[in-house]
C-alpha cells in the first residue's frame, strides 16, 4: 500500500474544515496536521487492504469524492468495527494533540502542568441568588 493511499484514508477520517467554513482558523486535515498512518499489526493491515479493495483499488479510493470515500469507510467500519475504530483512535490521538489543531480550536498547546488554567470564581449576582436557595430552607428528609 502506498503513502498516498494512507494519506487519503487519513484525510477521510479527519477531513478538517475548508477555508469557506465560518471558523476563524479552520481545522487542518489530518495530513496537513502531520498525521501519518501505518498499519501497526496484521489486522490493521488487513482492514486497510479491505478499504482499497472495496473502493476498487488504492488509486480509485484516492480519486473518489470525500462522500464516496466516507461511504467506503463506513461500510468497512460495519464489517470490522473494532479494528477500524482502533485505527481511528490512533489517528485521533495524534491529531487532537497536534499544536496546529489545538491552535485552530483556540486552545493552548503543551503540557497541562505546571501552568494550569485560570477559571473565574462565582460573581456577586450568582452568590446573591445562592442566598435565595439557602433561604428556601431545608429539603432533606429526616430519618433516624
Amino acid at each position, binding site marked *: 500500500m502506498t503513502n498516498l493511499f494512507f494519506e487519503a484514508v487519513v484525510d*477521510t*477520517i*479527519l*477531513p*478538517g*474544515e475548508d477555508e469557506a467554513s465560518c*471558523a476563524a482558523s479552520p*481545522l487542518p486535515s489530518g495530513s496537513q496536521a502531520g498525521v501519518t498512518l501505518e498499519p501497526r499489526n496484521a489486522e490493521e493491515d488487513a482492514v486497510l487492504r479491505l478499504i482499497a479493495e472495496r473502493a476498487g483499488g488504492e488509486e480509485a479510493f484516492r480519486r473518489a469524492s*470525500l462522500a464516496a470515500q*466516507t461511504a467506503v*469507510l463506513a461500510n468497512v467500519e460495519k464489517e470490522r468495527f473494532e479494528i477500524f*475504530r482502533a485505527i*481511528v*483512535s490512533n*489517528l*485521533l*490521538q495524534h491529531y*487532537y*494533540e497536534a499544536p496546529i*489543531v*489545538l491552535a485552530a*480550536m*483556540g*486552545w493552548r*498547546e*503543551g*503540557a*497541562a*502542568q*505546571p*501552568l*494550569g*488554567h*485560570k*477559571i*473565574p*470564581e*462565582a*460573581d456577586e449576582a*450568582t452568590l446573591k*441568588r*445562592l442566598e*435565595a*436557595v*439557602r433561604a*428556601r*430552607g*431545608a*429539603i*432533606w*428528609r*429526616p*430519618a*433516624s
Partner: protein
Amino acid sequence: MRLELVDIAIVGAGFGGAAFAWRLSQQRPDLRIICVERGGFPDRSAMPALRPDWQRAVLNEWATSPNLRLKSGKKSPSADYPIDDTRSDFKPLMWNGVGGSTIAWAAHFPRLHPSDFRTRSLDGVGDDWPFTYTDLEPYYDLNDAECGVSGLAGDPAYPPKPERVMPPVALGRLGMAAARGFDALGWHWWPVDAAINSRPHAGRAGCNHCGPCLTGCVTGAKSSTDLTYWPKALANGVELRTHCVVQQVVIEAGHARGIRYRDASGHDVFQPARIVVVGGNGIGTPRLLLASGVESPALGKNLMFHGAAYARGLFAEELDGPVGPVGCAIYSHEFYETDERRGFKRGVHLQVARENALLLQATRLDIPWGGPAQQWLREEFRHSVAVLVCNEDLPEAHNRVTLADHVEADGLPGVKLEYRISEHTRRSLEFGLDRAEEMLRAAGAHRTVRIPLAPLTGWHLLGTARMGDDPRTSVADGSGRVHAVADLIVADGSLFPTVGAVNPGSTIGAVALKIADDLARCLA
C-alpha cells in the same frame, strides 16, 4: 516463608484501608499493624499532565478502566488484574496502588443523606444500614478534616455540616451558567464539597485547574490517601508493604489466622495476624474472600455502581473549556428524596461536570471520525455544559461478582461481573435526564443531547460484602466483622447495603474510621 505474628494485617492501601490504618494506629499505638498492597506509590513527577501528549494517557496507561489499561499494552503504574465485564452494563473503573482509586478519582465529596441509611423503613426498598447518619456524622466530620474539604456550609439539602476549611472550588463560567438555569426554575443548587484544595492547605498546593484529575494530580491539590492518611499512618508506625498481592486469607477453625501473599520478588509469604482487615474494593474484596473459601450467601452479590447518564447543553456563549477539577462545580439535590408521583422510589443527583479534554471528547462521540464529528466538536468545544445524572442503584442479588475457573497472572482466580441495569434505574435516569435538559435549556442552551447510558461510568464498586444483622442476607455486621469468620473484618466500599445517589468516597472513609474505632474499643 513464614513471618512473625502481627496484630493487624490490612489488605489494600486504598481509601478504606488507609483511613482504617491511620485511625487504628492513632487509637492503639501499641498494636503492630501492617498493610499489604498490590501496587506501589504513585510517582507525581511521571504523571501525564507534565507531558505535551498528556491527553492520550487517559486512553492508554492511565485509562480509568483496568481492562483498557491492560489492553493498551503500555506499562501502567497501576497493578491491574483483568476483570471479565462482558456481562456487565457498566464497566468497572479503579486504580490499584497506594491510594487505591483515589489516585484516579475526581474527589467530588458528597455525603449520603440521612434517608439513604433508612430506605427500607422509609420507602420499602433496599435495606436499612445497621447505623444511622447521626451515628456516622462524627466520622464524616473527622474524614472531612483529614482529607481537606473545599465547599460552603449551609447547604439546605443536608443537615448542617461544619464550616468547610477552604472556600468552594472556583465555579467557572460553566458553573455560573448552570446556576442560572437552576435558579430560573427555582431548583436547589449548591457548590459541591470537593476533597480538593481550593487554596494551599495541610502542606499541599492549591488546585491550579489544570484539568486532567483522572490521570493523577501532579500538584497534590486533589486529596488522595497516599497524601493524606498514609503519611500519618506510616508516622504512627504502620508498615506498608507494596507490590505484594494477597492470595488468600488463611482461615482455620472459623478464625482468620493471617494472610498469604506473593511479594515483589515472587516469593510466597505467610503473614500470621490476630486480625485480618480487607479493603480491596467492591471487586477485589469479594474476589479475595471467595478465593479464600469464605462462605457467606451474600458474598459477591448485590453489586451496585450508581446508574449514570449524561445530558449535554450547547451554548452560544464561550465557557471555560477543558479545565479542572473535572467533577467539581455545582450540583442539585432538588430531586434527591422520594416523590411517589415520579413513578419510582428514591431519587437522582444532578452534577454539573466540566468539559473533557478535546481528544477524549472526540473519542467519546458515537461516530468519532469524518466531517460531522469535527463539526460537532467545533460547536461543542468551550461551549458546552455536561450534567451527570446519577440515580440510587438498588441492591439485587443477581448483580454480582463471581470467580472464573482459571487463575490469573497475579495468582488469584479470575473474576467476572454480572450486572444488568434495572427498570428502576432506567426510569430514574430518564426522569433525571429530562430534568437536566430542562435546566440546560433554562440556562440558555440552544441545543441539548443525552447519553442515556454511559458504560464507562463504573466508578463506584459497592455492596458485594454488605453490612447487616442477618448472616443469611449480609456478609458483615455494622462494625465490618464478617459473620462467617471470626477475626476477619471488611473496611471498604463493598460494605454498603445501599448506595444513595451520590459518590461514595466520603462515606467509605467515614465508615472505615468508625470500624477502626469499633475495633479499638473491642480490643481495649
